[in-house]
Each structure stands twice: as structure tokens, then as C-alpha cells.
């Protein structure tokens, strides 16, 4: 008789794995989640913005019990140079009404809560256990080997939600080796500040309203880098991520870069007097659409970061993870009815993903990672020009405006009209 301990084994208790576990357990499926950390969330990091929609479809009233920090009512974009900031953004009362668009969260707390929900739905979660490799028989994944004594487990289907460093997808040949241009190394500090100080500095009136700032520009010296500052109830999260290839090329250390960012004259006042509570690092898959792994094989599906599902432009990842976990669970439920867990049967997961916002969004931005690599001027020269031009216009120094405009036009000519027009055209052509 075929060995089987569970219907489904899920590897990794992050948003992807727990979403799948929640959905499967709710449908009465016998499911186990294997987590290597001391608890779900122990190893998990993100900048901190969680979009509600994907989870609300699964748990409509999750806001009642989930550990959320602030809902975001204002999102800002800052272009940084050494001594200046040119900014834009959107603050809207529409973001201040339920259902909120997104929240700042701490993943160590959030994932623990989400896992508890899956347990309540009937899933079994085993912590402190590392999955060493898949067990494959006649080309079909039938289980996993763990680092526990007698730790082999068997199931109809294994779902890999084991994150950016996914051993399972690598072992099964579903992903190529990750190369340095496809990932960003991101670090973050949580800096404790009194609630009122956070409110005052970011212009909100209570601990439930929050603000986000995304930062890029020539300050990061030509490296493809995104910084962020997010408000929590009694702390501010500040961090930045840079493409690993750029770090190697520039011989740059990401913590040094974070310290430099913290000292920027526009950033320093926001965190001044705060006490760092934690420092953390994590890799983010930023290769986009072309970096996505193969999503299934016989008896096996891949979700979340393990499948490289991150939309870096919109800082979306955890919601894509949840969506993929749900769709993998849906696929299993259909396959179970047929009693067929072959690659052909599980290919329905690929189709569901293709029709979801996850793949549609990633496909739309498919050329962006390469473009950012090729067109360094988008993050350096052009923002620097815009910052300098804005300074000239704002600075009243006795020079006639008409002469200032002339000088700015000269600088545009120096950047190259044709090159700028071509860059604008390329962006328009490639992102749609």
C-alpha cells in the first residue's frame, strides 16, 4: 500500500504556506506544516506593508484579531540626493475608511497569529524542523525528509512555501540558481519612539493612522536601491534593499548604507532620539516575471517567495504569497476529487495563477528589472536634475526666472533630449 501520513505536507509557515494550510484544513483536508523556526514568523522579515485584500477573501474579519500596526493613509515617494529631497505622494481620506488598503505589520507577530488561525481550522504545525529534501519515487514527489529522527513524511502532495532560499525547488530542478542581479538584500531597523512622537512627526492624530515613505535617487550612488520608512504604533521601521550584484560591484555593505540613510538630513529628524529595537536582514526576489520558477511538478506545487513571486515596484509580496497559497490549495481540492495528483492535474495551478492578478501584474512589469539595470540614469541623473531644477526655482536669489529656466534648459540639453525621449518611450512601451 502507498505510504501516506497526510493528504498534504506544506513546507514553511509564512503567508503562502499558512494560507494554503488554512484553506485546506477548512475544507477538511489532513494537512501538516513544517516550519524550521522556533515559531511561525521567527525567521520572517518584510519592510512591513501588508495589503489586506488577499487575506480578507480568506478570513473576512481578520482585522478583529490580527496583530496590525497602523493602516496607511498616506504614501510618499522621495527622491534623495546628498542634501535634498524632492517628494510626492498621496494622502487620502479614502485610505482612512474601512476596509483599509494596507497596514504596517511585524511579521514575527503576524505570521504567528496567522498560523494560530490555521491551527484552529484544523492544520497541524510542527516547528523547529528542517526539511532536508523531497522524497521522489518514479519521478513523483511523495514526501519529505526532515532533520528529526524517523522524520520522513508522506503525502499526496507537497507544497513548497519555503521562501527565497527554497531548497525544495532547487532539489527538484524547478528553479535555476539565483543570480545576484535577481535578488535584493534588504535590511531594516525597528526604532522605538513614543506613540505621540510618531504621530507628530508623520502628521497623523492617532496610533491607528500611518504613513509610508519610499526612497530612491542619486543618494544611493547608482545602485538599484529602494529605501523605506514605515510608521508602526510605537516605532518606525527604516530600511533599504539593494540588488546584490550592485553591492558586489560597488563593494558596498548594506548596513553602512543604512547608517548613511539614517544620517540623511531629511531622514534623521524622523528617527531622532529613537532607540533601535531590532536589526534584521532578508533577501527579496526582484527578478520579476522572468525569474518565476516552474510552479508545479508531479505531486508538488510552489508558492510565495519560493516561486519568486514579488512585485518590487508596488512592494507587494505577502499578498502574492497568500494568493498563490490559496490557488495551490484550490488546485489540490480539485485534484483530490479526481484522485489525480500528477503534473498534468496540478498544472491547473499554473492556469489559475495566470488568470490571477499575481501573474498579470508581474507580467506587466516583466521588462522593468532589466531596464533598471540598463538605464542607471533613471535613478541617478534624472532625479538629480529634477532636484537641482526644483532648488533653482525655489531659491530666490535675484536671478530672473527667465534666466533660471534658460540654465535649466541647458542642463536638459546636456542630459540629451533624444536620450531622455527614448528612455521615456521605452518605459511607456515596456510597462503596459
Amino acid at each position, binding site marked *: 500500500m502507498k505510504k501516506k501520513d497526510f493528504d498534504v505536507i506544506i513546507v514553511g509557515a509564512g503567508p503562502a504556506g499558512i494560507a494554503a494550510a488554512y484553506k485546506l484544513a477548512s475544507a477538511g483536508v489532513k494537512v501538516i506544516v513544517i516550519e*524550521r*523556526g*522556533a*515559531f511561525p*514568523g*521567527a*525567521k*520572517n*522579515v*518584510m519592510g512591513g506593508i501588508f495589503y489586506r485584500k488577499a487575506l480578507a477573501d480568506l478570513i473576512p474579519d481578520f482585522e478583529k484579531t490580527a496583530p496590525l500596526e497602523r493602516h496607511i493613509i498616506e504614501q510618499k515617494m522621495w527622491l534623495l540626493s546628498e542634501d535634498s529631497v524632492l517628494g510626492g505622494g498621496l494622502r487620502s481620506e479614502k485610505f482612512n475608511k474601512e476596509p483599509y488598503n494596507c497596514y504596517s505589520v*511585524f*511579521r*514575527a*507577530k503576524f*505570521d504567528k497569529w496567522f498560523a494560530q488561525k490555521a491551527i484552529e481550522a484544523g492544520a497541524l504545525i510542527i*516547528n*523547529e*524542523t*528542517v526539511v532536508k529534501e523531497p522524497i521522489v519515487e518514479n519521478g513523483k514527489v511523495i514526501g519529505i525528509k*526532515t*532533520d*528529526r529522527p524517523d522524520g520522513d513524511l508522506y503525502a499526496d502532495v507537497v507544497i513548497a512555501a519555503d521562501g*527565497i*532560499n527554497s*531548497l525544495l525547488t532547487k532539489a527538484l530542478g524547478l528553479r535555476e540558481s*539565483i*543570480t*545576484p542581479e535577481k*535578488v535584493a*538584500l534588504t*535590511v531594516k*531597523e*525597528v526604532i522605538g519612539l513614543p506613540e505621540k512622537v510618531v504621530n507628530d512627526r508623520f502628521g497623523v492624530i492617532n496610533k491607528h493612522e500611518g504613513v509610508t515613505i519610499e526612497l530612491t535617487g542619486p543618494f544611493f550612488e547608482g545602485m538599484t536601491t529602494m529605501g523605506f520608512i514605515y510608521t508602526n504604533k510605537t516605532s518606525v521601521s527604516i530600511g533599504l534593499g539593494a540588488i*546584490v550584484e550592485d*553591492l*558586489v560591484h560597488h*563593494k*558596498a*555593505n*548594506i*548596513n553602512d548604507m543604512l*547608517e548613511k540613510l539614517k544620517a540623511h538630513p531629511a531622514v534623521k529628524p524622523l528617527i531622532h532620539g529613537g532607540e*533601535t*529595537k*531590532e*536589526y*534584521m*536582514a*532578508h*533577501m527579496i526576489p526582484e527578478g520579476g516575471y522572468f525569474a518565476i520558477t516552474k510552479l508545479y511538478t508531479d505531486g508538488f506545487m510552489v508558492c510565495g517567495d519560493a516561486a519568486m513571486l514579488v512585485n518590487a515596484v508596488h512592494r507587494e509580496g505577502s499578498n502574492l504569497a497568500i494568493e498563490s497559497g490559496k490557488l495551490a490549495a484550490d488546485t489540490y481540492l480539485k485534484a483530490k476529487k479526481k484522485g489525480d495528483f500528477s503534473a498534468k492535474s496540478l498544472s491547473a495551478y499554473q492556469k489559475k495563477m495566470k488568470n490571477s492578478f499575481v501573474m498579470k501584474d508581474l507580467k506587466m512589469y516583466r521588462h522593468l528589472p532589466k531596464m533598471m539595470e540598463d538605464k542607471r540614469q533613471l535613478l541617478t541623473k534624472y532625479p538629480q536634475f529634477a532636484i537641482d531644477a526644483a532648488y533653482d526655482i525655489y531659491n530666490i536669489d535675484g536671478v530672473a526666472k527667465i534666466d533660471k529656466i534658460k540654465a535649466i534648459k541647458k542642463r536638459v540639453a546636456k542630459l540629451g533630449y533624444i536620450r531622455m525621449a527614448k528612455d521615456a518611450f521605452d518605459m511607456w512601451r515596456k510597462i503596459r
Partner: protein
Amino acid sequence: MRIEDKLYLIGYKVDEDGSHLEVNKKDVCKKCKNKACTFVCPVDVYKYDEKEEKLSINYDACVECGTCKIVCEYIEWRYPRGGFGVAYKFG
């Protein structure tokens, strides 16, 4: 803030039985020009002693991001044993 001071803020359960990180080829670091591991790692796990011509790996501090194995093909990177390694409070 120095990285040494930040490490005090991170919760770890250190596996005293040994490192989950190693370089799998002898003397390869001596010939390595860039030594990317020594500056890319966000917690300074890797240090190269020029005099001794030796790479030291302070695996206790590792936060398991995996960046080192992407910049160096000779780094043998494993997850720490179940339950060991970093455990974030916030994350």
C-alpha cells in the same frame, strides 16, 4: 550604530554543535580577489585575515539571509538545525 551593537538586539539560539556555513574548497579564499562575502554579509559573519590568509566564519551571527551563497559558489550554506539560529521579535 556599529553592527556589533546591532547584533546584541537580535535573538539567537546558537547551535554549539557546529557551523551551518563553510567554504567547501581548500585555499580558494586565498585566490579570491573580491572576497565579496566579507563586505556583502549584512551581519559581518565573514572576516579575512590577510596575515594568516584565512577566512573566519562567525556563524553565531548569521541571520540566514542566504546572500553569501549567491556571491560565492564555494560557500556551503545550510539551514541551521531545526529551532536554532535567528528568532526575530518583530521581523
